[in-house]
Structure formats: C-alpha cells, structure tokens
C-alpha cells in the first residue's frame, strides 16, 4: 500500500514535470534537452532556503521565481539558435548546471548532496505522511493542469501553436515568434521548478546525481509517448511510464542477472521510444486538429 502511495506521489510529480515540458515541446515546438536543469534549480533553491530556516510558504515562490528567472536568462541567447542547435544549447546548459552543483561546495555541498530537507508545512500543518504528501502533490498537479490548460486554450496558446506550426506565417501575422517562445520557455521553467520543489521535499535528499540527462530523457519520453500537444497526454504518459519503470523491479530474474536491471531499463526505454516513433509518432493520445 505504501509502495502504491509512493508511486502515486512520484507520478504526480512527474506529471507536473511532463506538463511543463509539454508547453515547450508540444505547444511551441522547442525541443528542450535541458529541462531537468529547471527541475534542479527549483529543488535546490527550495531545499537551501528551507534548510536555512525559511518556511516553505516563502521558499516555494522563491524557487519558482528562481527557475523562471534562470529560464528567462537562458532563453534570451538560446532561442536565437535554430532547431537542433537550440536542443544542443539546452543540453549543455543542463550539464553546466550539474557541474555548478558539483563544484560550488560552499553552497550545495557538492556531490555529497543536501540531506534532511524538511517536509513542507503550511500554517502549522505538516505534510509528513504519505497520504498527506500525496494530497499536496496531487493538489499542485491539478493546479498545474488547470493553469496550463487555461494558458493553452487562451489566444496566447493559439499563438504558440501558430509559432510551432509555421514561424514565418506567425510573424507575417504580426506575432513576435521570439517573444512567444521566451514566454513559453519561462512558463515551462516555472512549472518544472514546481516539480523540483515537490521532489526535493518528498525525497528529503537531493544531490547532483539526481539531475542527469536520464531524467530529461525520461520526461521527454513521457511527453512524446503520452502525446505531445495534448492536455492529458503527459499525465497518461507519466502514469504508464512510471508504473512500467517500477514493474521492472518485480521481474523474476535469475540472481546473476539482477545487476543488469538498470541498463535493461534504459535499453527498454530506448527501444520503446524507437518503436513508438515508428508506429505511433503522435503518442498515446492524439492532438485534435493536427495534421496526420
């Protein structure tokens, strides 16, 4: 039962993470390979602030603001690059950020990580047990879903899709594609920061090793598999993929094979992505009105 609750918490956190990436990848067509960086910024900011004694109510908005600010600063140069080059730039940003976490020992304790992050507390109510934490993370997931659905359905969201489908046409119609991309990137970064905050306070320990490219690939896989550019896609993708990832643990394998489980998981993920791209490139849930 506890395992199930734990899985549900992880799913809600990854759902937020995937929803935030969906704004960039699904609606604006920005393939961000460094999305985990903003997850890490949110996690580290909130963890450091709460460890310094600042209550969660203040550390949460501070972490979101920090993630948004970093997203803004990165997007100014990165979005000047086209297509693949943007992907490489974000990939490198993620790696550089991880290097900073590894090297600035005075701030982040380097590879030792930050242990003992307190559980979130709202007005004296502590979210310390699993069901309580699930309520908190599920509440934030619903809120994220509602806000992002609102953003995407608004004229702003339609403009984002126009930029994704044909940048030149959108610019001819008077939309500044560069500005729309920056806004989309900042929104995605803020919500990735939210997922990071929830993760840091759930795991109560974070270290640079938690924020590798593997996380980005996992969340990209969630978005692409669930169906990019749809509301429910990232959520469905998170549920399917996290359950699948955990179910590999229960495979009955001979003992001498168990050390292969980690790599096996990666291999299956890679295979899954290739198979999916070949047979159903639009993901589990299809985007309405998109070209087929």
């Amino acid at each position, binding site marked *: 039962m506890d395992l199930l609750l734990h899985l549900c918490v992880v799913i809600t956190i990854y759902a937020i993470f995937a929803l935030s990436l969906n704004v960039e990848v699904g609606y604006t067509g920005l393939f961000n390979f460094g999305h985990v960086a903003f997850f890490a910024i949110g996690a580290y900011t909130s963890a450091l602030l709460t460890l310094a004694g600042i209550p969660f109510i203040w550390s949460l908005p501070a972490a979101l603001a920090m993630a948004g600010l970093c997203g803004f600063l990165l997007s100014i*140069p*990165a979005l*000047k*690059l*086209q297509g693949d*080059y943007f992907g*490489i*730039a974000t*990939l*490198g940003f993620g*790696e*550089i950020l991880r*290097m900073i976490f*590894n*090297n600035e020992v005075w701030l982040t304790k380097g590879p030792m990580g930050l242990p003992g992050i307190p559980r979130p507390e709202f007005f004296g109510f502590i979210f310390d047990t699993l069901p309580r934490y699930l309520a908190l993370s599920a509440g934030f997931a619903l809120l994220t879903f509602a806000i992002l659905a609102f953003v995407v359905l608004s004229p702003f969201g339609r403009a984002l899709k126009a930029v994704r489908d044909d940048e030149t046409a959108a610019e001819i119609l008077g939309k500044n594609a560069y500005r729309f991309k920056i806004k989309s990137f900042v929104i995605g970064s803020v919500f990735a920061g939210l997922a990071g905050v929830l993760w840091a306070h759930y795991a109560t320990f974070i270290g640079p090793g938690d924020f*590798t*490219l593997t996380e980005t690939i996992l969340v990209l896989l969630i978005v692409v598999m669930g169906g990019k550019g749809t509301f429910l896609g990232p959520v469905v993708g998170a549920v399917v993929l996290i359950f699948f990832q955990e179910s590999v643990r229960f495979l009955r394998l001979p003992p001498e094979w168990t050390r292969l489980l980690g790599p096996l998981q990666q291999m299956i993920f890679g295979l899954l992505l290739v198979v999916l791209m070949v047979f159903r490139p639009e993901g589990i849930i299809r985007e309405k009105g998109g070209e087929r």
Partner: protein
Amino acid sequence: MGIANLIKAFAATLIGGVGNLWGALLGGLLIGLAENIGVLFISPGYKDGIAFVIMVLILLARPYVILGERSD
C-alpha cells in the same frame, strides 16, 4: 557518462563547420587546447563545460560557423 564527450564532439563539428572535414579537425584541436589552457584560469571541475560555452558563443556570434558554408 558519454554525454560530455558527445557535447565535445558536437562542439568540434559545429566550430569547424558542419560538412567540413578539415573544419572538424580544427574544431577538435581548438576545443582541446581551450579546455586544457582554460583550467589555468578556472576550476578544473568546470573543464567539461568550456567546450560547450565556446560552442554557444560561436553559434551566437557566427551562425554559419568558422569554415562552413554560409546557409542563411
């Protein structure tokens, strides 16, 4: 694990110009030199990041990169 090498290889290709054999050679040489001279000035922990920073700076300054053909 291989990500740092991947970025360096990509950076070398980009610096030299995509589709330019001698450019890639030059790019690789430049990055190798920059990395190892760079640690004189900054912490060796950031060594793997140097290639990447150079790459982004070059992409921003000259989108058609050093020896490649101009595409825009």
